[in-house]
């Protein structure tokens, strides 16, 4: 927890803000000490060198002049000088800011800008008449922007932006203003406090520095290993625009100095191809500080990213469409910020930008060159993988595996999975719906379909195995699986089942075969890892009698 002394100077009732800041401070790892000026005493507090404000000696000062108060002053300004109203306001605020800076040279100054008000007097033509209130408000907001651009210790808390996100109706409650001089509604107080703490935390170095991105269905639609470069959705294909927008957002962050890291369950070369070859990719390899694509669990890989970049876990944001990966990372590395992503990729950018996770403190040229520096550093150091113990997590999510034979209900899904699986596919035999029906009714073949669900959701049918009953042995004609459920123990569950079946049928041996394709290198050691022995000629064998059932954490139902 960082100690921080914040003074609040407002011309409206600010007690609710104080209370809410207190509530939220912990989430930002801040130990806040608050000073609240008496009601509407902004000028007196700042001008009087021996005021309580200066005795308090804050690290930050919030100067909250409300648009409602501004409107009252505007009403009392005579018509012939209303077109100069903004100048008066700006010079007053600038004067206050300069005095504050002078007397509190070490502290940061947060000034609120002004929410736009539709006053129903000039309407759209407020743009045309310089005496209109809205016309003045906008000029003041530009003035504040200029003030902040020129001075590294002055920050603008953007109420105008907040209002464009949440709308005036949800931020302002006229009843509360009339009853209690509150210029923010209940929700308004919550949003306001969050934004203020965000800025404070960023200004003292709590800013996020790194965005870790998943690839499949996060940076593009589809699965690169299965769909291939020509079929992933990015740019003009399918809902590719949603992913293009996310990439553009990430790219702008990168240009602002945020490090981008890739953390994906993929074969590295395959995962890199879109970055190298796809014409519509916005992100390229040179934008990525560190590219981690393998089949290890993501928490371990994030640890690798962390130690390579040498930044704190609390300065990292991890984005992944898969609830399993999010939950795993949250559980194992709770300091990493893991936003709960919307289901629909079309919502990604709005959702993420509204979270405002990357509030910068002060930018330096160092920030802007960080990606290149890091890339060079990585070239020098080789990555060492660190593995975290996943089994506790796997136990905790209550996985349930459901076995089915091929039937009329799962036939379409089996055919579809067969068509789409390229990576986890041992012999890459494709089965049409007709083929599936044939297996279902065959005497010497058995089709096994496995579905998986857990606390995090229903994954549906994710694994298919076709067994041929030979004279001497059982031959695994094909075994394919969705990559989304890798490393969950589904293969152990499946093999236990196959062996059990072989035993019942009095077979002694089971034979498996791996037929390499350009896309299935992922499973080249599949049978070896499961304890089969190599027979030559691509064939692997396991003995049913000697078999010890594999340990996994999936509960089985039929």
């Amino acid at each position, binding site marked *: 927890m960082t100690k921080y002394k914040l003074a609040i100077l407002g011309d409206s009732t600010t007690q*609710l803000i104080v209370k809410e800041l207190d509530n939220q401070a912990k989430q930002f790892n801040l130990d806040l000490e608050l000073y609240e000026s008496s009601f509407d005493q902004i000028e007196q507090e700042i001008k009087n060198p021996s005021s309580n404000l200066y005795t308090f000696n804050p690290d930050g000062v919030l100067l909250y002049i409300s648009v409602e108060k501004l409107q009252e002053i505007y009403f009392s300004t005579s018509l012939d000088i209303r077109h100069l109203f903004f100048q008066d306001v700006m010079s007053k605020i600038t004067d206050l800011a300069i005095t504050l800076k002078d007397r509190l040279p070490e502290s940061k100054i947060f000034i609120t800008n002004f929410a736009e008000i539709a006053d129903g007097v000039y309407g759209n033509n407020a743009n045309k008449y310089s005496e209109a209130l809205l016309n003045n408000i906008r000029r003041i907001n530009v003035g504040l922007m200029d003030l902040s651009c020129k001075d590294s210790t002055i920050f603008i808390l953007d109420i105008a932006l907040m209002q464009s996100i949440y709308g005036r109706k949800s931020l302002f409650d006229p*009843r*509360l203003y009339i009853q209690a001089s509150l210029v923010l509604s209940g929700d308004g107080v919550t949003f306001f406090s969050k934004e203020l703490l965000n800025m404070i935390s960023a200004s003292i170095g709590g800013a996020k520095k790194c965005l870790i991105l998943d690839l499949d269905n996060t940076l593009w639609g589809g699965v690169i290993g299965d769909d291939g470069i020509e079929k992933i959705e990015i740019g003009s294909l399918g809902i590719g625009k949603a992913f293009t927008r996310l990439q553009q957002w990430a790219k702008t962050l990168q240009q602002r100095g945020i490090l981008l890291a890739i953390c994906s369950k993929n074969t590295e070369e395959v995962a890199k191809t879109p970055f190298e070859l796809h014409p519509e990719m916005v992100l390229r390899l040179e934008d990525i500080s560190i590219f981690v694509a393998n089949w290890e669990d993501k928490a371990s890989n994030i640890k690798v990213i962390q130690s390579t970049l040498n930044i704190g876990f609390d300065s990292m944001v991890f984005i992944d469409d898969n609830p399993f990966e999010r939950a795993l990372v949250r559980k194992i590395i709770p300091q990493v910020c893991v936003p709960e992503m919307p289901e629909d990729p079309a919502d990604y950018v709005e959702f993420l930008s509204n979270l405002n996770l990357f509030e910068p403190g002060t930018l330096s040229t160092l920030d802007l060159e960080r990606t290149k520096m890091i890339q060079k550093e990585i070239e020098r150091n080789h990555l060492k993988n660190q593995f975290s113990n996943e089994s506790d997590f796997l136990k905790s999510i209550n996985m349930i595996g459901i076995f089915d034979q091929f039937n009329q209900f799962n036939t379409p899904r089996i055919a579809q999975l067969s068509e789409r699986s390229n990576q986890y596919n041992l012999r890459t035999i494709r089965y049409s719906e007709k083929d599936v029906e044939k297996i279902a009714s065959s005497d010497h073949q058995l089709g096994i379909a496995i579905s998986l669900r857990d606390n995090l959701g229903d994954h549906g049918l994710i694994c298919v195995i076709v067994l041929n009953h030979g004279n001497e042995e059982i031959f695994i004609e094909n075994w394919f699986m969705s990559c989304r459920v890798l490393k969950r123990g589904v293969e152990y569950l499946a093999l236990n089942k196959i062996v059990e079946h072989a035993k019942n049928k009095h077979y002694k041996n089971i034979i498996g075969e791996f037929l390499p394709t350009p896309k299935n290198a992922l499973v080249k050691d599949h049978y070896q890892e499961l304890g089969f022995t190599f027979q030559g000629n691509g064939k692997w064998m396991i003995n049913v009698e000697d078999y010890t059932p594999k340990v996994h954490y999936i509960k089985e139902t039929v």
Partner: protein
Amino acid sequence: MNKELILEKVNQIFRKVFDEENIVINYSSSAMDIEEWDSLNNIQIIIAVEKEFKIRFQSSEIRGWNNVGEMCDAILKLQK
């Protein structure tokens, strides 16, 4: 929802706003009985009550209640 149930929910809101687990209110409780019940806490109670019951009071109502019972009556009326 009947008045007793409303009172129960309002009581929970009081506990949250005053950050006091043991507060027990009844229909005749008023600002006189509860020391911390000032105008600002009153606003917080109103914000929370409106959110809980999905209702909106008139400005004039907000100041007019003499005790918790009258507030519960107002909630009951707006719920219909």
